[in-house]
């Protein structure tokens, strides 16, 4: 068998989604963003939503997400992506409108916008990348930084008396009546990537079917911010992040028979 025999479309098991372009990524080696970007690009195409999809970029590393995925994008102010998405979705109810936000954007400066969008039951999907650190600004403490974890603004480790506690905003989201699907996933193994893709597909479907707000947290690594190799970062995440941020679905009203948001538009 020659190389040409092997390189056939029928033998393709993985590839770059057509919605992802050739722009070299600015993300660091080992970063989780690239994997989640790929899943979004695959899903938008697979679900046939390219012409009816608008992504909302955050402030943070993913501020440049628009460079890589060829759909329409709006860049929001720091933390305001859910408010931007709320308006876009209400004005285009049959579009897929999603936000892509990091922990500082979603769980700190944008806490009010996040909680109220979820609580209103805006028919949007919020993709929440939680790497417990501010990556873009160079490794400062995030609302989700674990106790004892060192960052440039808590160089001796996060202490509850000085800095408060790591915020479990996804648990808060699950307690809100407006959310229909709240899930916490990761992308550090092939199996985990598949589970995240399933969760994102479900979230996108919910948004298209006006079931209310969906939030998918992806517990992620930031090898540069954590000052580790990508391999070390994955191991550290499993050992330290997963016990505090356990993976799995926190809420799915489409499965249990909880009341759906009443349609009044």
């Amino acid at each position: 068998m020659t190389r040409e025999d092997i390189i056939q479309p029928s033998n393709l098991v993985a590839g770059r989604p057509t919605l992802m372009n050739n722009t070299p990524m600015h993300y660091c080696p080992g970063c989780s963003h690239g994997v989640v970007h790929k899943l979004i690009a695959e899903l938008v195409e697979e679900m046939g939503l390219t012409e009816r999809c608008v992504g909302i970029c955050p402030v943070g590393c993913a501020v440049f997400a628009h460079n890589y995925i060829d759909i329409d994008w709006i860049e929001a102010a720091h933390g305001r992506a859910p408010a931007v998405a709320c308006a876009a979705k209400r004005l285009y109810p049959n579009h897929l409108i999603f936000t892509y936000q990091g922990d500082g954007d979603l769980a700190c400066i944008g806490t009010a916008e996040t909680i109220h969008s979820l609580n209103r039951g805006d028919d949007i999907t919020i993709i929440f990348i939680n790497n417990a650190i501010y990556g873009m600004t160079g490794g400062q403490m995030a609302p989700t930084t674990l106790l004892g974890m060192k960052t440039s603004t808590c160089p001796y480790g996060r202490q509850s008396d000085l800095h408060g506690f790591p915020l479990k905003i996804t648990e808060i989201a699950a307690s809100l009546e407006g959310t229909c699907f709240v899930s916490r996933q990761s992308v550090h193994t092939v199996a985990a990537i598949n589970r995240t893709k399933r969760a994102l597909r479900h979230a996108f479907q919910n948004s298209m079917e006006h079931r209310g707000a969906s939030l998918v947290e992806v517990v992620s690594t930031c090898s540069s911010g954590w000052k580790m190799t990508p391999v070390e970062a994955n191991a550290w995440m499993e050992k330290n992040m997963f016990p505090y941020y356990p993976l799995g679905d926190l809420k799915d009203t489409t499965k249990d028979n909880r009341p759906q948001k009443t349609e009044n538009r």
Partner: protein
Amino acid sequence: MVKESETILLKGNEAIAHAAIRCGCDGYFGYPITPQSEILETLALEKPWETTGMVVVQAESELASINMVYGGGAVGKRVMTSSSSPGVALMQEGITYMAGAEIPGVIVNVQRGGPGLGTIQPSQSDYYQATRGGGNGDYNIIVLAPASVQEMADFMDLAFTLAFRYRMPAMILSDGIIGQMMEKMVLPPFKPRRTDEEVKRECPWAATGRSGREKNFLTSLSLDPAWMEEHNKHLQAKYETIRQTEVRFETYNTEGADYLIVAFGSAARIAQKSIEICREEGLHIGMLRPITLWPFPTQAIRQLSERMKAIMCLEINAGQMVDDVRLSVAEGCPVCHYGRMGGMVPTPEEIVQQIKSQLIK
């Protein structure tokens, strides 16, 4: 439903709400604050989502409201918010992002006295904030100053038209007097909302979904300073076009007058009465009322100033527009100012006294 061309009695705030529904507004996003809450209340009562399809959302804050306007404008829709001074201060983040990303939208400011929480009574003390941009960076927004309930309604469609013509925020800078007072007025004729296809055609830049074109992306960010300087030059060129073409003002009683009052909004209404009192006493005072505060009617004031002995700027603030008047007048024309602050409003008689003591010395 009000009949076409029917004269009715409305509050300024109610007029804004009715005009919004009738001028094809796609969405209103707001947060309650005195003295403008009737705008959201009127929209909630009218339920336009059942008639025109206009979306109405009570947001969690003014910050959320303006970012909803940012989002609505970014997808090419005619969207608006309203607030009063402290709330508009909170909105400055979204307004500067709209200016940077060239996103159209309308902000109504029914001003109250400041600083801080200030009062709930009328004021014009947000003039600087409105006409100097208000947020970070080099930018301006279009500012329309209504002086009647009729103009509150009439400026709604004009504000949207200008905002979309130049892809930038436009503000209706009103105050607690115009917002709360009732006057006879005629609502503008009904104009349907644009269809999604019309939006796509008219706003090829909007994030409406990537269909039949390259992707659209709206942002105010670039890490390349050379690009950002070019972007700023583009914005400044746009602002210069607006200064050349969109100045609006009104003159009153200026023919043969030796003295001029410059006043906008509710101050101009009070000044008009003072001018009538003066006329009965044999004093001929004219008035120029800027309708656009930005762009400012610099040339018109300069021309008038050439044949005036003196000018008095009347504002309900400590003296803000007077700076622009001083920058406009011909050399040698004295300019004085009179204003009240903190929610206090001058009476016509009080102004007559000032005309006699300050203007005609």
